[in-house]
């Protein structure tokens, strides 16, 4: 598990049925690219988050394949259609096998 990995997402608390909302997600993660060398000249091995998904009530909103060129503390902004009351599940998959998750509810009036 990489250290101090913490997600931060912005999801509207409430919406009308079928509304399209802008979702913003940030997660603190070094995204070690595998290009850097340490002080002894040894390559620091790659260790990144390689995939990000967002689902709503089990249906997929976006699925991102991530490469080392994504900056430290990966940020994604995208649009999601909110058909009904439910939960957004955000999932980040780390090279080292860890999976980070954040869940946010939305109420549809």
């Amino acid at each position: 598990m990489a250290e101090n990995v913490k997600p931060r997402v912005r999801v509207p608390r409430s919406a009308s049925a079928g509304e399209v909302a802008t979702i913003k997600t940030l997660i603190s993660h070094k995204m070690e690219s595998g290009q850097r060398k340490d002080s002894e000249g040894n390559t620091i091995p790659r260790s990144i988050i390689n995939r990000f998904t967002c689902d709503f009530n089990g249906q997929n909103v976006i699925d991102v394949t991530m490469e080392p060129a994504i900056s430290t503390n990966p940020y994604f902004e995208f649009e999601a259609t909110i058909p009904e009351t439910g939960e957004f599940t955000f999932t980040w998959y780390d090279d080292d096998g860890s999976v980070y998750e954040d869940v946010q509810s939305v109420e549809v009036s």
Partner: protein
Amino acid sequence: MRYKALTAAAALAIAFPTLGAADPDANLIINGEIEMVTETAAPDHLKGHLRSIRSGWTFRTEETQALQMDDFDNPGMIFVDQGRDSWNAVEGDAGQSCASCHEEPESLRGLRASLPKWNEEKGKVYTAEMYINDCRTERMGAEAWGWDSQPMKNMTALIASVSRGMTVDVAIDGPVEDTWERGKEIYYTRYGQLELACANCHEDNYDNYIRADHLSQGQTNGFPVYRLKQANLVSQHNRFNGCIRDTRGVPYDVGSDDFVALQLYVASRGNGLSVEGPSVRN
């Protein structure tokens, strides 16, 4: 690439204010709510030196400026979140957290705007880092955090964030006067092989370019800063250290009395701007 002969001074003097396009009239309003003063009249003590003062935000490109305008765009805010977790975590022999005494971080609203300031009990000027470590070692029975350690930066970011929008107002007279004078002395002293004083770039040449860097006034109202370069928070002392190192001089130590004095003086040059921390810079 072949260059026509050009002296270094002349090359430095080529100003490209439109390179990278910063909009000088742009307003900084965070989350559509917190209005920031990013340009205002210089404080009295700068008479003869600067007429107006500008936040570092105004020198950055539009894309960088945009990153600070929403708390979900600003990467510095993930560290504020971590600071908040830290605030609530019990640590040390006394079995307390910051929250045990201070309740909510919002109770420290106003503090950042007046830092660094005189600590009567300790008889010297104190920065946020020093107050935090005093609490940890003397009241929580916990270990001190390194000045530039991640937990320390997260905490100073949290403390700055609850004062956002407030006007920077640090005292420069009374018991802090000697410290302030020392800071002012450092600011105008040329250091290093390149013999550059803070003033040479940040007072005499702000808005010009030094190589590829668009020089700001070196204001600190936005600290701790999320620097795109490090993709992490950076403290004032870390920046002072970097600047003097870049003059090919020997910097004072992070946490030293000299840097605390410089921090006080530089903060006072920004009296009138709004607290922006954590801000986003290059």
